[in-house]
């Protein structure tokens, strides 16, 4: 099965005319980016990734830009040869909607590069440094029988020096790799407990590394787990190291690049959030409309039935982790619901799905309807269907949707989804585990909205309660997460680290506000954050204003503005200035400030605009909700 991972089996095969398509991109830059992206979503090998990377470079040199993608600058700090890796990363990035620019440290002195404030790495102005060292770079002298604790502490000190070097010389986030142990054993199984053996030391070191990285607000890339998945004897290649200082076997470069890119995508809030599932031969064996309740395969005691049960179990665990589930099936509605209602062994039930679409429309139309009903963009959706025709149709019409190649054998369904890494996360908060419920509540709210024609009585029926509070320690993690992940309702898309967020809390020049919302359908959790900076004694500039799209259309933003104005007034502020900095994702809020009654004061060449609102006399329409406001005195 290591070839399953090595070949990125969940991705479609590259087109036979891959080379000539690369050539066309340079020749026809207008269609270029969509071609780049569609090629990048296929299972390219290392040579093909390098060719695509060169094509992307030429495309950029021709003055074209990947304007639909998120720019990211990565410095690759490694003790191995970087050449293949950098190209593979550049070629993989469009798969995740990223426009990646990367440089590498000097491979023979990665640590010196970090500690030297004048090194190329620090002048690059990276968004993140990927600390891609392997065990060969560690001070790990074989000391069999010696103290494992001492050895682990020595390694931790070493990494600490590196992380501090980054903190002192750079604003970048650190992505730190765990360390796969070498494949060779000394005394065999006993190595696991043999003090001072590489397996023993690195095993404990990886665990401790996890804590250390969390503490400094870094991001962990678990290369040790990746290497274990493919097998250490496959991952490592002494000859590749001896010949060319490749850290691991060249065969896994595409897989490694995918892991790095999915992690970066998660850092930028671009992980997928919703899984739309077909029913027949996807959630059970057979066709419910033909085979009937007794004929479909979904039960213990039958190998195929058990495989589908395993898949359902896996889907439920994804749902608990915050992935929203939905159904899109070509079926009569009542027939499609039958197994969920009446089959005793089904694990999935109707209540687990936010949207249930069983009809005879084509799947792309259904996917668009699901996207609208959940207020989730198509780029948040994964579509799972056993039917190659449906998969290809969705790929062609809705390229933003991720569509994994599904294996013939349902026993591999869960592994396929898991390997594809659609739901990569860099953190997990209690709010995440409730997310599927939030969206389900949303779909019910949408259904209610259809019944209630008058918007005011609809908003009243929601029985909303809102909480305003300055930033503080317990909310800080979630605030930082929102600041770094919100793309759509985000006026400035300025990203801040947890440390920066903490500094705003303490500074007298900043006014901060976190917002929570509850309604008749449940607790929405923290849904908005605002940072105002005092421009003078008389004016606040709204540096950051973002909101979760789950609560759109309820005039929550009006209530937030009213709260800002109340605090501003209390502090003698006369004007509030709003900025809109356009990105490819935030056109939703282009008219946010004029809609709230701000006056236009400036437009800039980069498309950004500035808006002003006098504090006294501002008239902002409230929404029906109970307001809990932590007074200014508490800040």
């Amino acid at each position: 099965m290591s070839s399953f991972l090595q070949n990125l089996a969940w991705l479609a095969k590259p087109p036979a005319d891959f080379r000539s398509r690369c050539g066309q991109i340079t020749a026809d830059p207008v269609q270029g980016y969509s071609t780049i992206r569609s090629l990048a979503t296929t299972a390219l090998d290392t040579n093909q990734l390098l060719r695509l990377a060169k094509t992307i470079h030429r495309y950029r040199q021709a003055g074209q830009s990947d304007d639909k993608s998120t720019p990211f600058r990565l410095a690759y700090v490694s003790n191995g040869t970087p050449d293949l890796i950098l190209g593979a990363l550049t070629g993989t990035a469009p798969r995740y909607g990223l426009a990646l620019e990367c440089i590498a440290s000097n491979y023979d002195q990665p640590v010196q590069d970090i500690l030297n404030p004048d090194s190329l790495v620090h002048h690059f102005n990276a968004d993140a440094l990927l600390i891609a060292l392997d065990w060969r770079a560690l001070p790990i002298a074989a000391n069999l029988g010696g103290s494992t604790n001492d050895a682990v502490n020595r390694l931790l000190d070493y990494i600490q020096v590196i992380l501090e070097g980054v903190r002192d010389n750079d604003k970048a986030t650190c992505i730190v790799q765990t360390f796969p142990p070498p494949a060779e054993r000394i005394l065999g199984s006993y190595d696991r407990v043999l003090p001072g053996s590489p397996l023993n030391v690195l095993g404990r070191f990886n665990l401790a590394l996890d804590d250390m990285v969390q503490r400094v607000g870094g991001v962990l890339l678990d290369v040790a787990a990746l290497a274990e998945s493919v097998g250490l004897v496959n991952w490592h290649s002494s000859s590749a190291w001896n010949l060319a200082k490749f850290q691991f076997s060249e065969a896994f470069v595409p897989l490694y690049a995918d892991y790095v890119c999915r992690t970066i995508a998660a850092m930028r809030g671009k992980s997928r959030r919703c899984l739309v599932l077909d029913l027949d031969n996807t959630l059970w064996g057979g066709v419910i409309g033909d085979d009937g309740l007794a004929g479909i395969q979904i039960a213990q005691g039958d190998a195929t039935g058990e495989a589908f049960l395993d898949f359902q179990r896996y889907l439920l665990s994804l749902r608990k982790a915050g992935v929203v589930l939905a159904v899109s099936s070509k079926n009569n509605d009542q027939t499609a619901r039958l197994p969920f209602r009446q089959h005793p062994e089904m694990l999935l039930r109707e209540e687990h799905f936010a949207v249930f679409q069983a009809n005879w429309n084509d799947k792309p139309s259904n996917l668009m309807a699901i996207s609208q009903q959940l207020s989730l963009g198509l780029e948040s959706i994964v579509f799972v269907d056993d039917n190659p025709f449906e998969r290809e149709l969705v790929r062609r019409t809705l390229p933003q949707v991720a569509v994994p190649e599904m294996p013939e054998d349902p026993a591999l369904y869960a592994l396929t989804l898991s390997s594809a890494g659609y739901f990569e996360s860099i953190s997990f908060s209690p709010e995440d585990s409730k997310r599927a419920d939030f969206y389900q509540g949303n779909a019910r709210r949408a259904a209610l909205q259809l019944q209630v024609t008058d918007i005011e009585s609809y908003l009243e029926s929601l029985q909303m309660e809102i909480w305003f509070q300055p930033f503080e320690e317990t909310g800080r993690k979630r605030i930082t997460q929102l600041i770094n992940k919100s793309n759509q309702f985000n006026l400035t898309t300025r990203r801040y680290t947890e440390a920066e967020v903490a500094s705003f809390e303490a500074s007298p020049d900043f006014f901060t506000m976190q917002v929570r919302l509850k309604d008749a359908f449940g607790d929405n959790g923290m849904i908005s954050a605002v940072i105002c900076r005092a421009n003078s004694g008389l004016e606040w500039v709204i540096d950051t204003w973002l909101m979760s799209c789950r609560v759109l259309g309820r005039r929550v933003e009006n209530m937030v503005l009213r709260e800002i104005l109340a605090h501003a007034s209390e502090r003698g502020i006369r004007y509030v200035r709003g900025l809109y900095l356009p990105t490819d994702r935030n056109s939703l809020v282009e008219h946010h400030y004029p809609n709230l009654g701000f006056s236009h004061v400036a437009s800039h060449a980069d498309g950004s605009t500035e808006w002003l609102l006098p504090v006294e006399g501002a008239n902002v329409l409230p929404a029906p909700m109970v307001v809990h406001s932590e007074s200014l005195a508490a800040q």
Partner: protein
Amino acid sequence: MKDRIEAGLTEIFRDVFEDDTLVVHRDLTARQVEGWDSLTHVRLLLTAERKFGVRISAAEAGQLKRVGDLLDLLHAKIEKSPRRYGSNFSV
């Protein structure tokens, strides 16, 4: 057989050097191909290993002077492992 290996090598060379007009022959050497440096040399060998399902040791790699040497080496290795030849070698 050697013809098929040679055709397979041509594909590999075109991939690695991004030149779709390149045709390999026995007497081709690094000096005659633009971009044939130590890194692309290793890439050629690794891609060939994967394509033909064989392993090339560092010692063997060090003795290759021209494409003909690589061709002979691959041929000898493929002859020795006919089963792998069947499953991995598709030109």
